[in-house]
């Protein structure tokens, strides 16, 4: 075991020049963010542009987007474990790692949003359960994190012993993880959805839209990451797997656009006073139109990506596929991020319009959390690939031939 850890650390410190540049760049970004966060801790959240009128901003927007990414792992889990679809089964582990990373980032985004993070443990002492959806969300996210860590560690543990996982053990984990994945995003949607004071969020379509958009952005991110990973390492991701995921994105995006259309119809046709946030988002309200370019970009991205994914020619051409993936990520990031959080607060409950836009400090902290996620994922994948390939083993040296035989 000790040797294993030593080898692991040794392995993590080894890599190409590109690997070092990447790690150093990430560490630099993280350091920058830590400095910014220290400043925020000392001065208070005044360093952000959040105010009483718009009391949640970039942090919670990123959080919401990332919950979707985490939930999207289910799109790989179902074909891999339930239908034993071989190409995806090969890569489901890396999908689950994306979920783990996304969840860690989610928790970080919530922590940096707290006014008094040093007292976050109060939630464990007097949790307002079952009334507060935030408690539900903390349970859901941490539970999903544990499930995914369990699944990944079990598979890697078996691999490190040169063995395949046993379905009898994986089955309950998988059966738990599928509904749980849906639930994390549903609960996150309910977090906003349940607030009757915010008409923009208080629509029953919010949770389904969350799921649909999550099943677009998460897999799109995975497609990009898998392509990078298979170029930089000897991990085996087949084109079939990637195209399959792309196909699933097409369906999810179709559903997402449909639900979006349904919401747009209801709001604009009924044209009640609750339309104000929607107007603010897409057209601007009383001359305030800071979000309009973003909101419109999101629509264009999502619609364009939908057609790129739908057509199997563009879907199976890596140039157009990657363009489509980037479009989806941008589209959903705006739609489920600023496009969801900010209009919930604008106009505020007393009719005031405050144009929120994150400060540089908020930007630095957000980017550094993304960098932390990238770093975590890099380390995870760098650890997992050799174990997966049998190069790093818990077995003593003498026993390894069995694996080499398996590999050849």
């Amino acid at each position, binding site marked *: 075991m000790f040797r294993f850890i030593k080898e692991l650390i040794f392995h993590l410190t080894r890599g190409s020049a590109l690997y070092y540049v990447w790690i150093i760049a990430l560490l630099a970004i993280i350091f920058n963010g830590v400095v910014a966060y220290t400043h925020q801790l000392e001065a208070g959240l*005044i360093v952000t542009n959040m*105010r*009483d*009128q*718009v009391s949640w901003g970039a942090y919670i927007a990123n959080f919401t987007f990332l919950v979707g990414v985490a939930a999207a792992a289910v799109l790989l889990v179902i074909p891999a474990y339930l239908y034993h679809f071989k190409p995806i089964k090969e890569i489901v582990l890396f999908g689950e790692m994306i979920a783990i990373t996304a969840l860690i980032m989610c928790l970080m985004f919530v922590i940096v949003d707290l006014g008094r993070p040093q007292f976050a443990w109060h939630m464990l002492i007097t949790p307002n359960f079952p009334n507060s959806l935030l408690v539900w969300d903390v349970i859901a996210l941490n539970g999903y994190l544990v499930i995914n860590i369990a699944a990944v560690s079990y598979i890697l543990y078996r691999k490190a012993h040169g063995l395949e996982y046993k379905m009898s053990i994986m089955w309950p984990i998988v059966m738990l993880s599928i509904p749980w994945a849906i639930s994390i995003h549903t609960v996150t949607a309910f977090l906003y959805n349940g607030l009757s004071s915010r008409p923009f969020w208080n629509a029953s379509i919010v949770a389904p839209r969350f799921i649909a958009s999550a099943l677009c952005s998460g897999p799109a991110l995975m497609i990009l990451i898998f392509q990078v990973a298979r170029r930089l390492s000897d991990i085996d991701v087949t084109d079939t797997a990637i195209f399959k995921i792309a196909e699933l994105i097409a369906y999810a995006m179709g559903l997402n656009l449909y639900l979006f259309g349904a919401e747009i119809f209801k709001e604009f046709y009924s044209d009640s006073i609750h339309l104000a946030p929607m107007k603010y988002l897409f057209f601007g309200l009383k001359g305030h139109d800071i979000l309009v370019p973003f909101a419109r970009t999101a629509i264009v991205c999502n619609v364009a990506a939908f057609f790129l994914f739908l057509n199997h020619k563009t879907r199976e051409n890596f140039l157009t596929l990657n363009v489509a993936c980037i479009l989806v990520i941008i589209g959903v990031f705006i739609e489920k991020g600023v496009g969801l959080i900010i209009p919930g607060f604008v106009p505020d409950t007393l009719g005031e319009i*405050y144009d929120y836009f994150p400060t540089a400090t908020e930007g630095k902290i957000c980017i550094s959390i993304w960098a932390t996620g990238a770093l975590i994922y890099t380390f995870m994948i760098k650890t997992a690939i050799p174990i997966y390939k049998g190069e790093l083993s818990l077995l003593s040296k003498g026993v390894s031939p069995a694996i080499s035989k398996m590999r050849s």
Partner: protein
Amino acid sequence: MKRLVGCIVYALVVVTILLAAHRLRAEPGTPAPEQKQQTPQNTQQVPKTASEQADAEHHATIPKYFTTRPPFSEGIFPCTTCHAGLKPDKTRRELYFHTEISLKHAAKQRWCLDCHDSENRDRLRLANGDHVTFEESYMLCGQCHGNVFREWKKGIHGKRTGLWNSDKPGDKVYLLCVNCHNPHSPQFKPIKPLPLPVRPNEITNIKGTSTVEIEGHKLYIPVYGK
């Protein structure tokens, strides 16, 4: 003979008012009547006539709703200081004195002596000829503003300060009509508002504070930079 008829009519009026006052007292929601007679300051020095005695008696049955003093103008009250030696002139005319008073309270129908008693300027008179002190001026206002009077007694109209859960006289301060409304010009005068709040992006852009004193309360208001 004329005098006798007058006396009888007067007695009838007094009885009616007494009954009315009794009903008033029985109205729900009025605080427990304080039977203790307050010794009014600055009251009339003139000896009380028989009719005044009757008035005092019937007013005693009305709870002491208030503990505030009417806003007497400095050096003006008691009015009898000057008016005791003056012969009342009941004709409607431009005044040489009290020029600061411009009557904007149904001025066309009204004249000073409709409310101020011509015989004793230190008291007021009701429409029925009854007399009330300045401390009880709400009786006078209530003649026309019946709804407001009723709501004032319940605490819906007007201002109450002091202790919210004590009905002891002095603990809860009830303002008189005239404490807020100038009886000669009862409409509220526009006032200067206190500073607006800062916009959300400027909540720390505050230069300092300044103190204003409003009716004995010190308030701290912000000072903003240009």
